[in-house]
């Protein structure tokens, strides 16, 4: 009993009076020190501020149908953070480290039941329909022969917005995991290419190749969809 009271007093003494949780924003070092000291408030802050983002990323990586897996993956990520805290060398930002744990958890869970384009296929997929270009042998070989569609000229834009989103979502969902990771981290979460590469465990160059292929794939899906829509309108 007396020992328990001592522990409670020690906690009270450790916590600065009027400590503002926001003091950890932008100060990874102080945060890690507090976490290693067992500061529950620090861990709660980290947990609550990162979890919505982690759920969002996991949702994208695992696919829409896997909503129950999302929270399992996020929970496993946090357990990985707790266990890995002592070994975290802080060469990367806390955010990079935590999201990397999440991505690795999601990779382990990624099920074969999700039908995606194989990575090898995506990498050899033409960015633009090859028939758009003038053929080899032509004086202007490789130049555009056809003007790409004007996506701005869509009738009834409001009606199509939800459908457009569905096409975008489906195109992202069918990307191979590596490409989907990159477009999620870069275009949804806004991490720069260097951080995406650190999270994914690859080079910035590879990351940009995957990003290009991912965006190109979504572009072609959207272009096909918008073309077919225009056909209907005619």
């Amino acid at each position, binding site marked *: 009993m007396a020992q328990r009271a001592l522990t409670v007093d020690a906690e009270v003494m450790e916590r600065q009076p009027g400590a503002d949780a926001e003091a950890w924003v932008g100060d990874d070092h102080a945060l890690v020190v507090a976490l290693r000291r067992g500061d529950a408030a620090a861990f709660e802050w980290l947990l609550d501020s990162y979890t919505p983002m982690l759920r969002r990323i996991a949702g994208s990586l695992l696919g829409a149908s896997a909503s129950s897996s999302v929270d399992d993956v996020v929970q496993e990520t946090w357990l990985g953070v707790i266990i890995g805290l002592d070994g975290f060398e802080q060469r990367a930002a806390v955010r990079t480290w935590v999201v990397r744990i999440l991505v690795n958890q999601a990779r382990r869970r990624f099920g074969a039941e999700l039908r995606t384009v194989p990575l090898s296929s995506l990498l050899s997929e033409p960015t633009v329909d090859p028939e758009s270009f003038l053929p080899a042998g032509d004086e202007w070989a490789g130049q*555009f022969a056809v003007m790409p569609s004007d996506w701005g000229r869509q009738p009834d834009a409001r009606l199509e917005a939800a459908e457009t989103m569905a096409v975008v979502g489906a195109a992202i969902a069918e990307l191979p995991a590596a490409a989907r990771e990159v477009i999620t981290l870069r275009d949804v979460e806004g991490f720069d290419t260097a951080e995406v590469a650190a999270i994914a465990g690859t080079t910035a160059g590879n990351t940009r190749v995957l990003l290009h292929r991912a965006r190109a794939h979504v572009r072609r899906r959207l272009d096909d969809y918008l073309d077919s829509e225009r056909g209907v309108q005619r």
Partner: protein
Amino acid sequence: MTETPDTSGSGESQHAISPGLLRPCAEVVEELTDYTEDALEPGPRHRVDEHLGDCEECSRVLGQLRAVADLAGTFGRTAGPIVDAGLAADRRAALLDAFDRHRRRDS
């Protein structure tokens, strides 16, 4: 191609090809992500700039790739698992408990 190279009034020789168009569009489109990510060296970057200045088709593709990045962002932020939701209370409590127990494990 939808443009003729010898536009009058451009200040260039009527027999000169616009320098940007010396590179095939099929090559330029492959560089557009490196271009937007600021990953091209100054020379290659300038050549893409020049090509885009002369090529409406590639400029349109660039716009579409940027639109895709925006749409992917919007989709991801609005169509995923319930936005801004945290973990269920029991999961959260289990994690706080795990944190406490792990930190105290040697004491």
